[in-house]
């Protein structure tokens, strides 16, 4: 009996075997946490689908049709590896792209090095991805933790505040964001004192207690790395308890529509933050992007939309430049490649494979009962990333 059950299940697995690639087709394998993080991945998917449509409307990759095969990783590194294996071994994709969580980015990057295939990371923010655990197969689009911290530390150094407290989720992202921010700010302002820190578990902040614990250290300024539902709770408790009154707040990513919009009329005012003020960017390249996006989806883009859009655009540009799907040729093409983006031209640096895509820095405000960013400016990653020599020392020897 059990033999038949085995056979039936093996058969079930085998049923999933698809037809081979048709001629004149280039395939990209895309993996993201669709089921675990839909608030980010739905706009992200819309973004890359728009890019794909544009690319194929403009003749594809040197005449070949571009196909994106998209897989869910359920938010788990191990499932991401299973998906990557399917894409590489069965579907024969030319390169891998995607990822949201840092640990999934690292797992995919390591897989890419093992299987000798290019991995273009879209979202994962950890610095390790291109530095301490960097490898020649991995490229990353988004401005890293370090760049976000550098942009914010620049602004923080200009504030009069000397007593600082930190609030960050207790995992790698929060820890490395705070570490980088502290190092950069202390270097610029040796007189700064770090008086308090709180590390609530991600997704389970006890916001009232955290707010009181921070208030008890009596800081002049607070740096925050919380996002999502935790941010909402922190802002609500902090507002009610007056935690932010008379204090400067510097906050990672809070200006991104993904995190600012859910706060509605309770959005914080006067926080210094990085983000994506889509409503106020009037460069021609952004206008073209947003018009196309709104026409196709009848919705405004989130930052995830830009990441998805630009990830596939970058992958296509690399494939077009390489004129081949051979990994070594793709790497050669990707190193130093320049391409347009909705935020302006970006380059994938040859030294660490990090793109120079930047972020918008500004202050939060309330307009018509909605949180927005004001007084913002675009900060290109190129101005904040360390130089080639410094980066070389950070990366493991090949």
């Amino acid at each position, binding site marked *: *009996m*059990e033999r038949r*059950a*085995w056979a039936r*299940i*093996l058969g*079930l*697995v*085998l049923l*999933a075997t698809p037809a081979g690639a048709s001629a004149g087709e280039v395939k990209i394998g895309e993996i993201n946490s*669709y*089921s675990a993080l*839909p*608030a980010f*991945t*739905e706009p992200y998917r819309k973004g890359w689908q728009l890019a794909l449509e544009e690319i194929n409307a403009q003749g594809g990759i040197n005449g070949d049709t571009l196909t994106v095969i998209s*897989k*869910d*990783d359920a938010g788990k*590194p*191990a499932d991401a*590896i*299973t998906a990557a*294996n*399917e894409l590489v*071994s*069965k579907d024969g994709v030319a390169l891998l792209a995607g990822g949201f969580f*840092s*640990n999934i980015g*690292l*797992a995919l990057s*390591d897989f890419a090095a*093992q299987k000798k295939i290019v991995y273009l990371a879209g979202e994962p923010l*950890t610095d*390790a991805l291109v530095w301490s655990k960097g490898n020649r197969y991995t490229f990353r689009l988004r401005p890293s933790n370090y760049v976000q911290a550098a942009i914010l530390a620049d602004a923080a150094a200009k504030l009069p505040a000397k007593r600082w407290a930190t609030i960050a989720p*207790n995992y*790698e*992202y929060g820890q490395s964001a705070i570490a980088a921010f502290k190092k950069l700010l202390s270097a610029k302002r040796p007189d700064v004192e770090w008086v308090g820190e*709180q*590390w*609530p*578990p991600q*997704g*389970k902040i*006890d916001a*009232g*207690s955290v707010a*009181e*614990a921070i*208030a008890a250290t009596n800081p002049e300024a607070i740096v925050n790395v919380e996002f999502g*539902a935790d941010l*909402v*709770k922190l802002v*609500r*408790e902090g507002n*009610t*308890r*007056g935690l932010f009154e008379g204090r400067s707040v510097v906050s990672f990513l809070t200006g991104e529509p993904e995190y600012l919009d*859910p706060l509605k009329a*309770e959005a914080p005012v006067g926080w210094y933050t990085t983000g994506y003020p889509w409503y106020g960017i009037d460069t021609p390249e952004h206008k073209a992007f947003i018009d196309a996006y709104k026409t196709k989806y009848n919705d405004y883009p989130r930052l995830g939309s830009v990441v998805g859009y630009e990830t596939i655009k970058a992958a296509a540009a690399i494939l077009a430049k390489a004129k081949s799907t051979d990994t070594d040729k793709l790497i050669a093409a990707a190193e130093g490649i320049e391409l347009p983006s909705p935020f302006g031209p970006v380059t994938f640096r040859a030294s660490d494979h990090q793109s120079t895509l930047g972020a918008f820095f500004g202050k939060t405000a309330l307009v018509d009962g909605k949180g927005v960013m004001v007084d913002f400016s675009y900060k290109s990653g190129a101005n904040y990333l360390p130089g080639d020599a410094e980066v070389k020392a950070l990366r493991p020897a090949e």
Partner: protein
Amino acid sequence: MLQHLFAQGMSGLASASSLFLVASGLSIVFGVTRTVNFAHGAFYMLGAYAAYTLTDRFGPSSFWVAVVAAALIVAVIGALVEMTLLRRIYDAPELFQLLATFGVTLMVEDLVLVIFGPEDLLGPRAPGLEGAVVLLGKRIPAYDLFLIALGPLVLGALWLLFHRSRFGVLVRAATQDREMAAALGVNQKWLFTGVFALGVFLAALGGALQMPRDAVNHGMDLRVIVDVFVVVVIGGLGSTFGAFVAAILVSLLNAFGILILPKISLVLAFLVMAGVLGLRPWGLFGAKPSPVRAVVSRARLWRPLDGRGWFAAAILAGALAAAPLALDDYALGVGSEVLIFALFAASLHLLMSVGGLASFGHAAYFGLGAYGAALAAKALGAHLPLALAGGVVVAGLGAALFGRLAVTLSGVYFAMLTLAVAQIVWSVAFQWVDVTGGDNGIVGVWPPAYAASARGFFWLTLGVVAPALAALQIVVFSPFGYALRATRDSELRAEALGIDRRQVQWAAFVIAGCGAGLAGGLYVYLKGSVFPDSVGIPLSVDGLAMVLIGGVETVLGPIVGAVAFKALSIWLISKTDYSKLALGAIIVLGVVAMPKGLVGSLFIPRALVEKRR
């Protein structure tokens, strides 16, 4: 300073009240129906979504009506779930209800996404309680004061319900002795439905009342469910007052703990639970469960594989060994993963089915094996066989240490202590960044050249897993295995026979830990990396699901269950956007159609035939 401590205490008490509302519901449901309701968190989340929808439709001023209406609506949904699903399977093996409610949880997670969308939703604040009240010079949110008052009020209302109403008397009678209540003619059907609806009402009320403090989001269920389990167990299962005290204890310790150790929240509740269970095995206010009356298991008598059976197993192994000649690399990768989980499930089965000890934290030993192997390979440069052995040793040592503690308990308390231990191991893996890499894990652990290809690795996995499964099979039918089953079936009689219960169960715990550790080591080489989620609760739950799906009362169940569950979930994740909805629905249907699991149900006709002969 005093002011700060006061504010911290008030904040802790407010959190305690919210936690208590949800926990009391779970505790009541468990007390009467003995169902470990995994879907309790899902109902909590539905309560929040329902309340949001109502206030969004009727305006913020409808807040209070919306909260109560939402809780009532969700209670009706809960009653329907009980009547259509749980009612059919109260007779199924223990913990089968857990599997059913796990399936419901999976479905609700995706349904919420489809119905309410992916974004976090911000509900209105409570009218009249938006602001803060200044007490001792500190601003305390008015809503917190309301919550602090609500906790004792609900406790009092429940006390009145249980002590002053006929329904309550029946509930208490059934909590104390279900069979006796039934024998006295209490209509269990409607009693169970009523209790379940009451529990769901409290969960949904707790969720709806979170609206002014939280963003309503689709991850709320899993965030609350584990905390609630912990509170219920610390307080003592079935004890409402215990849940109240435990909620206050955990919340206050957390509020003050973070002043001294800002990173403590991650693990605090589990440390408290492990400590309490060490001192009081049935929680603070729980009573020792009445000994199970000799319920004769209706399971088919287990028989060791006869000559024909081993022959069939050998043929199957041979066929699998030939599989790489026919399958592509991806299918072989999936095959390796499925084999690894067959070993994981079989090792859990030794504890759960043979030993009668359901571990909710079996992933701890899988993870210890994985980290052990990865560290042996990365830090010591061990080759694959040595690294795997290292993983087994680490897992075995961990199991020996924690098993010693765990086997002093039994039943749900055993399950919860193993859960606590697993969560503590998880937090070590998560926090000890210098050794484990923390959240970013250990990467770059790939097999050497001879097993680097998908084919080579499949053979390696088969070569390790098949003998390990055979060894577990032999253990089950060894004198040791019979002794273990004796302790499961009747503790008293086993001890009268001179079997040292704890010693035997401890040994089983270690063997199961080693098996899981071996699976974990292989898993590292399959994936090339290890992350804290290899120790996580979801993996432990997956293990339970595999054993239950296969059939907890059968010998070969876990292997079939692991193959079915793992292959199905990989396939669904790859093919659909709503894999959780599909998997949950399949589990729920499977539970109703085959209440004895795949193997158990498929064997029934043969058992009948044998009886006639």
